């Protein structure tokens, strides 16, 4: 969130005594990412990068609960929406700047998460999935119906974001995409660091034990409810942060955009498509999904077909594609998830690593 975090982050999270080449590659990648806006100044490219960052944060945070702990929540829109609404309402109605509002959002999301967890964690397998959906739907319908509080279906539009000042020095006034780019990048690095820390801690081993076999984990003395709730809190806190980031960046939220079942499903799909229960799975998922879905949304695929001469622009099919393809950009999510589930159940990343390492199957997580 603030710039002091930057210096702490430059230590690559992957460097557990790796060969020097690894270290150099990570440093090079990081400096490239930090210098990226200086090299490329097309706002659209920056916008795409910011969306990819957002997806990575969401995927990584879901991964803690879904990937490492095996609790497939399909209700993460609840935490995303809570963060978005809290930050946005504080900013619009109480003039609380978003970099303070985000913490309130995290706190509210944790409370919501504990309430939902106390109900859902009593259930297992498909019943847990259904309960998590129902809980998120209750929150969406509440936001839709408490019109005096949340403005209902009309949503909330951000009028202006207060400038961020440190003492008397103006750091940024959020007028360009740059501050959002760096905030997103830092949040991504923080989430990846968090995932790495969880994965290599005792907590991570407990979570993975729960994922592999709840009853066996329980008989080994792992407190199931406690550990599931810890995973949920971490996951909800980061999801809520992503929600706040989204709300401030887009500048408009309504129950359909931030609290809907579609949102929850998209969060899950980032992980599933990339590879579940791995650090870089969600990264791969975001890098695959966001550009594809944006290409559909902005009609690039239809244009590409015209340019390649596959479909005539004036032909009836061409006109049809140009008019309609943009509306159905979620189609790509559907097709990808079906392909991934049927042919590469370990996700794209798992599939690639299996391909590279031949038939020798190595533990990814």
């Amino acid at each position, binding site marked *: 969130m603030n710039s002091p975090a930057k210096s702490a982050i430059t230590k690559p999270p992957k460097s557990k005594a790796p060969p020097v080449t690894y270290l150099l590659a990570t440093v090079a990648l990081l400096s490239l990412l930090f210098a990226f806006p200086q090299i490329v100044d097309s706002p659209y490219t920056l916008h795409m990068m910011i969306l990819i960052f957002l997806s990575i944060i969401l995927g990584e945070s879901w991964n803690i609960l879904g990937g490492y702990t095996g609790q497939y929540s399909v209700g993460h829109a609840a935490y995303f929406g809570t963060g978005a609404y809290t930050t946005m309402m504080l900013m619009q109605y109480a003039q609380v700047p978003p970099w303070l509002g985000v913490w309130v959002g995290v706190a509210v999301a944790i409370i919501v998460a504990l309430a939902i967890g106390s109900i859902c964690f009593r259930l297992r397998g*498909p019943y847990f999935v259904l309960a998590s959906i129902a809980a998120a739907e209750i929150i969406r319908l509440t936001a839709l119906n408490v019109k005096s509080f949340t403005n209902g279906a009309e949503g909330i539009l951000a009028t202006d974001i207060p400038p961020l000042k440190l003492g008397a020095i103006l750091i940024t006034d959020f007028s360009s995409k740059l501050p959002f780019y760096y905030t997103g990048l830092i949040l991504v690095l923080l989430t990846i660091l968090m995932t790495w820390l969880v994965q290599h801690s005792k907590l991570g081993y407990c979570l993975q034990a729960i994922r592999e076999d709840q009853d066996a984990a329980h008989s080994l003395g792992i407190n199931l409810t406690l550990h599931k709730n810890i995973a949920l809190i971490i996951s909800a806190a980061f999801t809520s942060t992503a929600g706040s980031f989204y709300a401030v960046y887009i500048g408009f939220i309504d129950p359909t955009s931030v609290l809907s*079942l579609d949102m929850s499903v998209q969060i*899950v799909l980032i992980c599933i498509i990339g590879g579940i229960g791995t650090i870089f799975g969600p990264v791969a998922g975001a890098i695959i999904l966001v550009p594809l879905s944006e290409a559909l949304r902005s009609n690039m695929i239809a244009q590409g077909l015209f340019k390649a001469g596959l479909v005539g622009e004036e032909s009836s099919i061409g006109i049809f594609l140009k008019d309609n393809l943009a509306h159905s950009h*979620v189609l790509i999510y559907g*097709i990808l998830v079906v392909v991934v*589930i049927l042919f590469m159940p370990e996700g794209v990343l798992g599939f690639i690593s299996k391909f590279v390492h031949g038939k020798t199957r190595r533990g990814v997580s």
Partner: protein
Amino acid sequence: MTVFLQSLISGILIGGVYALIGIGLTMIFGVMRVINFAHGDIMMVGMYLTYNLFTLCGIDPFASVVICIPVMFLFGGFLQKIFINRVLNALPQNQILLTIGLGLIMSNTIMLIYTSDYKILTTSYSSGSFRIAGISISEPLAISFLITVIITAALYWFLMKTDMGQAIRATAQDREAAQLMGINVKRMSVIAFGLGTALAGTAGALITPTYYIFPQIGSTFTLKAFVITVLGGMGSVIGATLGGVIIGIAESMGAVYISSGWKEVLVYVIFLLVLLFKPSGLMGKSRM
């Protein structure tokens, strides 16, 4: 009192259609242990099929049920053979995600063809109603309820009395034992999925005169179908019928006595309470 009876009657009438959706979901779960997250989207496909039959061929939505049932049955059989069959032994999570993906493909393909505009199918009786003992009853709802009763009765007869129905029930009870008894469980799975799809499609056809038709309508009904089947007990056909009617009544009562915006919240609260206190449902054997 009139208001109470009025909302009770309309609740039961709409509950009939809900029961149809619920029975389809519960049959699929019973035979394959797969929770079909595309169920509402399948219903949506049925709605568009009916809409097309009406606008292109002028076939009445209630008469189109006769076409809808076989077409949707084949569609369901196709889905089962090509997709669902491959994940029967996979993790339940993967099954859920596969059906979510199939649902996304269906709703977005329909959106690609018909755009996301709301469509209305207006028939001569769409807003008609008649009165019995001071209670007004919507004509399309009454007809659809009647058709629902006939279909449900036929389904019971099929499941209880025919050889194939018994084979399906046996597969649902114990897949391996059924296989040992010489039942072709793979074929039963295809038939059960086809039947479930046909029921959902029929429910879609029946609600077209009274509901808006749009590509995203599915997810609401998928969730409703879950509530109904969990309430009745996963895998129990009688439970799903009962659950459908209960949810129908709860919605219509909620709309009258609380507010129409909150009626769905009521449905989900009931759902969570059932999951917490009686997860096996009203009619289900404990199968958690």
